[in-house]
């Protein structure tokens, strides 16, 4: 059965229309990102130019970022962020995986009440406790240190156990029951059975907790105040766009932003599968 040519034609038109539509949309979406990358290679000085494509191209912005450390010590901030990210990533991953395992697999009296308490705690706006955390850290003499940042990023991490629990819930219980019958302890079940089977969620947890310190600028600013040498990249870059610096440092900001954004973007795109799995798995369970 052959279709009339007019139907074929309108189908083709529709196909072209759909693809053109997607092209326009994705250009609109990607434009600011492309603009950012182009600005980071821009030769002309100044904050903004009223045209999109720069007239001169240079890598000086990137070079300056790492060499000109008088006002903005980007290499140091980068190192700070890296140290904080590594440690908070380790602590967060351990806490979240253990908590997820406990709530998913172990049955104890306090389980339901604890989960409810965490649910309620999570409903308070995070910024509310910011000032209090600052004073608690101050009481320990920890403000303006990197340790404080690590503690802040990983301290409440256990409350974000939902995605991990959602994943553990999908691992068939019969497997660990068989292991328990064979004489494994629950500790061994966790390390030798559940953990190896949960690679996606482990990777997901490691990556998200590693990215966290790179993108937060609120808690850093509250804890570090004016200790410029303890800033992380996000807060440091944020300073570059203040009214008095933006004219001279806008292109450097773009360069710094590109350096931070590229690894994060690659990480995110490569793990989007786990990300979606995590969000929907948590959701379906309510």
């Amino acid at each position: 059965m052959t279709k009339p040519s007019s139907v074929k034609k309108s189908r083709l038109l529709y196909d072209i229309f759909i693809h053109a539509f997607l092209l326009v949309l994705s250009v609109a979406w990607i434009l600011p990102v492309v603009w950012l990358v182009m600005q980071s290679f821009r030769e002309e000085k100044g904050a903004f130019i009223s045209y999109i494509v720069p007239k001169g191209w240079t890598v000086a912005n990137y070079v300056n970022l790492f060499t000109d450390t008088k006002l903005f010590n980007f290499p140091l901030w980068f190192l700070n962020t890296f140290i904080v990210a590594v440690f908070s990533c380790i602590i967060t991953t351990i806490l979240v995986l253990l908590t997820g395992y406990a709530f998913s697999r172990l049955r104890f009296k306090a389980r339901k009440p604890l989960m409810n308490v965490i649910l309620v705690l999570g409903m308070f706006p995070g910024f509310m406790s910011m000032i209090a955390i600052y004073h608690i850290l101050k009481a320990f003499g920890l403000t303006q240190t990197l340790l404080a940042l690590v503690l802040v990023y990983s301290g409440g991490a256990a409350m974000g156990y939902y995605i991990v629990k959602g994943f553990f819930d999908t691992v068939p219980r019969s497997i660990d029951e068989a292991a328990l019958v064979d004489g494994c302890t629950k500790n061994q079940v966790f390390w030798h059975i559940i953990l190896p089977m949960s690679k996606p969620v482990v990777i997901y947890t490691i990556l998200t907790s590693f990215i966290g310190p790179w993108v937060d600028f609120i808690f850093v600013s509250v804890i570090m105040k004016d200790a410029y040498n303890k800033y992380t990249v996000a807060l440091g870059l944020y300073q570059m766009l203040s009214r008095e610096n933006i004219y001279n440092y806008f292109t450097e900001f773009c360069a710094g932003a590109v350096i931070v954004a590229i690894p994060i973007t690659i990480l995110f795109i490569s793990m989007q599968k786990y990300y979606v799995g995590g969000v929907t798995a948590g959701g379906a369970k309510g």
Partner: protein
Amino acid sequence: MSNFLTKIKATLADVINAVIAFFVNYITFFVKGDYKTKLSYIVMGAGSFLNHQVVRGLAYLVFEIFFITYMVNDGSYFLRMLSSLGLKKQGEVFDEATGLYMVQRGDNSMLLLLFGVVAVVLWIAFICIHYNNVKHAYKNQCLIAEGKRPESFKEECQALLNERFHITILTLPAILTTLFTVLPLLFMILMAFTNFDKNHQPPGNLFTWIGFTNFHQVFVGNPLWVNTFRKLFVWTMIWAFFATFLNYIAGIVLALIINQKRVKLKKLWRTMFVITIAVPQFVSLLLVSKFLLDEGPLNGLLLQLGVIKHYIPFLSNALIAKITVIVVNLWVGIPYTMLICSGILMNIPQNLYEASLIDGASPFKQFTKITMPYMLQVTTPYLITQFVGNINNFNVIYLLTGGDPKTLGLYQAGETDLLVTWLYKLTVSEKNYALASTIGIIIFIITAVISLVAYNNAKAVKEEDQFQ
């Protein structure tokens, strides 16, 4: 709704029963206990120690000694000061003995409150551990009466890796969460009942308890606060509504378009959109905010092209700024929904579409009658979290507009401020911690009520199993 109320009643009953059981047990253990158990009430760990559980007994004892030392030295002082939050104001005081004015170091209300809360939390911890100690001593006594032997240290360690593994792995998370979430929250919640504002800043000044005055001021008392709260509340709700549902619907439509069989290069299109969520928000949103300035590149470009005669006040006119943030949020949020929903869309049974096609349904009808009901049912929890998340969506507003344009009619807030960015401004720039905490509690109540009601109604929908 009635279902929901019975649930709350049941939870309350559970809590009350647990508290009653706690006290009944406390007395029973003492009445029925032998001398070891009775001794445990005073010397913690005695019931373990005398039954050859040396390590456990020592641990109880060390904790008791630590607790008593702390309470004698500092704790009791902080507990006493909790009722007044400090009496001595910093300043010069006439000293009668020497006849001179002496500089007096005042009490620091904030530290008194903080350490007062710490002392209360320690008391609670002490009571729990004391109860546990007595219970354990009684358990040992019962075991011996039955002719069994209390667990040895080695057996207890093994149990910690097996039957009591939850204690092993939850202790550290619990301690850290208490320190960095529970304690700060208690502290801030209490602050809502004080007058800790710009004029009552420690260490120079004292602040004290004022009960529900702050809540009264926000709801009826202070016209400026009332006005600000009402306006920001309405805007927060409008914002959350549009930010959630526009993103949701547009994201689903985009996912549907890309999911069509005829669309080539599906992966490329998806990646193009996903890049925007991957770029950190402090970069992308800050850039967009600069991009949209009155003298920014976008206005410059449009002026050059002759599309407009005057610049468009994207972020400086109250109404346009509100529309701008919603539109920019579409830019942030649509890829997000697309990413989440793509997979779910593919799970919709295809025969539903085929059947509707035979019945002559238009694509629009298919969307409203098949796709949306299915999606709504599957993604309700996601929608609820999104809505609550948007009420607290700090980043988009703070980075894009910073709450601006400013206005005189509002107290320390701009036209596009949400309640949560207002809270932030109140703490960081205005130092009105009492009001900020009050707003925080109100936000909590709003989000809690919305999610509780929504979840309960969503469960009712789920039970109908329309699609199975």
